[in-house]
């Protein structure tokens, strides 16, 4: 390979797309490292505190697309205090001071201020795509800057962010003709929906906001006609408030839809949902509420033969109410949708028998996340733990990369996971296991493990400290409400200087600080740049 000029190598590397593969390529030899890094355009940083913007910019001068993730996953569920960190400002500042021609920025669980968005919008002439998922800290002022200044914007994707101001006025900052705009994925209020659709008829992805109640109104008719013109829409989401009788407005585009997100449409009842879904035979991705019921899922199973990803969210989070979906819905889906590879399923109950059937029907799962709403609930038929059911899943699904467990579980399920889940990269555990052995089975067995997050399990210092070297092969470990002690964490931090071991201490316990004291929340991650300088008072890096 030394005989090839750099351009040839670069050309070959062009065919290597995935981050993992490119990272591997860069490890072969110095020459390949250099050619690879100079030609790399897309970089994924799974933990913004693992390195610094300066390191990134120095290594990849050709950077065009950056993905950054900030807070730990459990921050989504209010387990991480508000000011923990994850600020994007230093990254945007550093990038704007450099010669990097950034075109795409994808952020997840980061704090994004209006200043950051304004700086972003002014710094990169070719900026094309902004994706913000589960971020916070900005208002529509920042969004207005993006709409107004990014002349070549193609994609604006805002999912589940905490935005302080919901007024739609910023949308008028888009230029009169957004011929570059292909994707607008956020809750568009109805009045502006019209407007945008007329300016950007080539839209492929569309989010809708509040809908209308009255099918006889003029607005509804206008909308109907506008939608008829948008033959390109493949991805539809929103429907925050909708009267079921107005759904027929979107029937014309249902046949082309590949992705449908109705998970905010609590106003649509099961039967209306079903009528809608029957028209969407090409769906590959469906996000829905559990009020669709097991029967509704049977309709999905018989209609959506191309389905690859299904998410069923709970519609009643305040109480354990009526039986919405159970194991039967999941079994039906597994039988009817052979291409299913990603699942997030909130349900009232699950049985081992059902999981075994699902495992047999769908050996291609890549992501399997099951959330039984009541913690530690056993199989209701046999009253047994769900070890065997999940065991069947990991044994059958040889490509499983992500797994979330729930229900009653003993150490045995972790033994199975350690033995069979060879490709597992991310595991989420809550209220499970009996002893340190559970965690050890996983740390020992899952060679590709990158993220482990545990809450309310009986794992202590022995589990934490048995194999400290493992953590440098992983991105991060989260443990909350477990049995690890301050002494255990200190020992770990001492032995592994290239890890940041953060204790999140909300109640000033650490002042009392005895080594035996249990640590409420610990988050550790590998890093090249040592303890972070923006940690708030309540975060203590050991």
């Amino acid at each position: 390979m030394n005989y090839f000029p750099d351009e040839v190598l670069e050309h070959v590397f062009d065919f290597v797309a995935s981050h993992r593969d490119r990272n591997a390529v860069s490890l072969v030899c110095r020459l390949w490292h250099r050619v690879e890094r100079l030609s790399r355009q897309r970089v994924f940083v799974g933990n913004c505190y693992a390195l610094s913007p300066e390191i990134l910019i120095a290594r990849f001068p050709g950077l065009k697309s950056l993905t950054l993730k900030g807070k730990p996953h459990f921050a989504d569920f209010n387990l991480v205090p508000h000011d923990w960190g994850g600020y994007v400002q230093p990254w945007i500042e550093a990038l704007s001071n450099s010669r990097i021609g950034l075109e795409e920025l994808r952020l997840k669980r980061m704090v994004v201020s209006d200043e950051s968005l304004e700086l972003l919008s002014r710094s990169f002439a070719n900026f094309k795509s902004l994706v913000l998922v589960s971020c916070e800290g900005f208002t529509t002022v920042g969004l207005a800057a993006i709409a107004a200044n990014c002349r070549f914007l193609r994609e604006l994707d805002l999912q589940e962010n905490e935005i302080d101001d919901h007024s739609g006025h910023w949308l008028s900052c888009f230029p009169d003709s957004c011929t570059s705009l292909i994707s607008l994925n956020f809750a568009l209020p109805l009045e502006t929906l019209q407007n945008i659709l007329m300016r950007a008829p080539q839209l492929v992805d569309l989010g809708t906001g509040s809908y209308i109640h009255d099918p006889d109104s003029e607005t509804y008719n206008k909308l109907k006609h506008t939608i008829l013109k948008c033959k390109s829409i493949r991805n539809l989401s929103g429907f925050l408030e909708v009267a079921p009788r107005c759904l027929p407005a979107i029937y014309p585009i249902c046949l082309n839809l590949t992705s449908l997100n109705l998970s905010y449409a609590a106003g649509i009842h099961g039967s209306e949902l079903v009528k809608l879904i029957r028209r969407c035979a090409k769906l590959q991705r469906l996000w829905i509420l559990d009020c669709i019921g097991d029967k509704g899922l049977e309709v999905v199973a018989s209609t959506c033969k191309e389905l690859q990803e299904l998410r069923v969210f709970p519609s009643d989070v305040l109480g354990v109410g009526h039986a919405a979906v159970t194991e039967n819905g999941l079994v039906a889906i597994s039988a009817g949708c052979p291409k299913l590879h990603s699942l997030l399923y909130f349900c009232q109950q699950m049985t081992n028998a059902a999981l075994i059937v699902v495992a047999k029907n769908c050996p291609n799962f890549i992501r399997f996340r099951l959330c039984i709403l009541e913690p530690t609930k056993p199989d209701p038929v046999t009253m047994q733990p769900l070890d065997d059911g999940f065991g069947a899943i990991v044994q059958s699904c040889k490509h499983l990369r992500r797994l979330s467990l729930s229900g009653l579980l003993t150490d045995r399920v972790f033994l199975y996971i350690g033995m069979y889940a060879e490709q597992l990269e991310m595991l989420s555990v809550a209220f499970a296991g009996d002893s340190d052995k559970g965690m050890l089975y996983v740390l020992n067995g899952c060679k590709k493990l990158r993220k482990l997050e545990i809450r309310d399990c009986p794992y202590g210092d022995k589990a934490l400290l048995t194999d400290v070297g493992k953590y440098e092969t992983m991105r991060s470990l989260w443990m909350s409400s477990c049995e690890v002690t301050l002494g255990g964490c200190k020992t770990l931090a001492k032995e592994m200087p290239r890890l940041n071991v953060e204790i999140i201490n909300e109640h000033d316990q650490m002042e009392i600080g005895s080594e035996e004291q249990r640590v409420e929340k610990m988050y550790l991650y590998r890093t090249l740049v040592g303890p972070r300088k923006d940690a708030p008072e309540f975060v203590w890096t050991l």
Partner: protein
Amino acid sequence: MERSLNYGGTDDLILEATELRLGLPGSDGHEKQSPATANHVMRNNKRAAPQGMSEEPRFKRISNESDIASNGDPDCEPPAKAQVVGWPPIRSYRRNSFQQKKSTDQDDGAGMYVKVSMDGAPYLRKVDLKFYKSYPDLLKALENMFKFAVGEYSEREGYNGSDFAPTYEDKDGDWMLVGDVPWDMFVSSCKRLRIMKGSEARGLGCL
């Protein structure tokens, strides 16, 4: 780097237990070792509770439901269905949108605060239906609020002698004349009010 599987102490997990067959558990007649049930002792929260701890009750690991053969194990208490922080694991964005939906549902379903619109008025108002005891009560209040008069109600002719007719949207989304159904039924099914004016209103009167 090679790491040996270190199961240390597998005596309580015999190898056969690791054999996975795609069949129902327990079907091989093999004595299932006592499952987690009896071993699931209530976790004692022996934690130094600091001052000013949050009000959220600590979640205790639920031992299996009391109908499990725990043999009257005194450690197994009935499960406490406390509100657990961060459970179920859904994003706050989603959780908040449901709570909003719930509260608007409650408003509409219980007929408490409902919007009142009047044709031609620049903005809407809100009234609390629970505040009124009867139709005359409500209508008088509306008359005062919007400065108009409804006229005489009769079952046959609706509201006579006025350019205005009070209507409401019910749970099915239909627009109904105020006054036809018993008051309680009205309060529980009314989602919003609209004072119709002009020819539309008169049209109702001529039915």
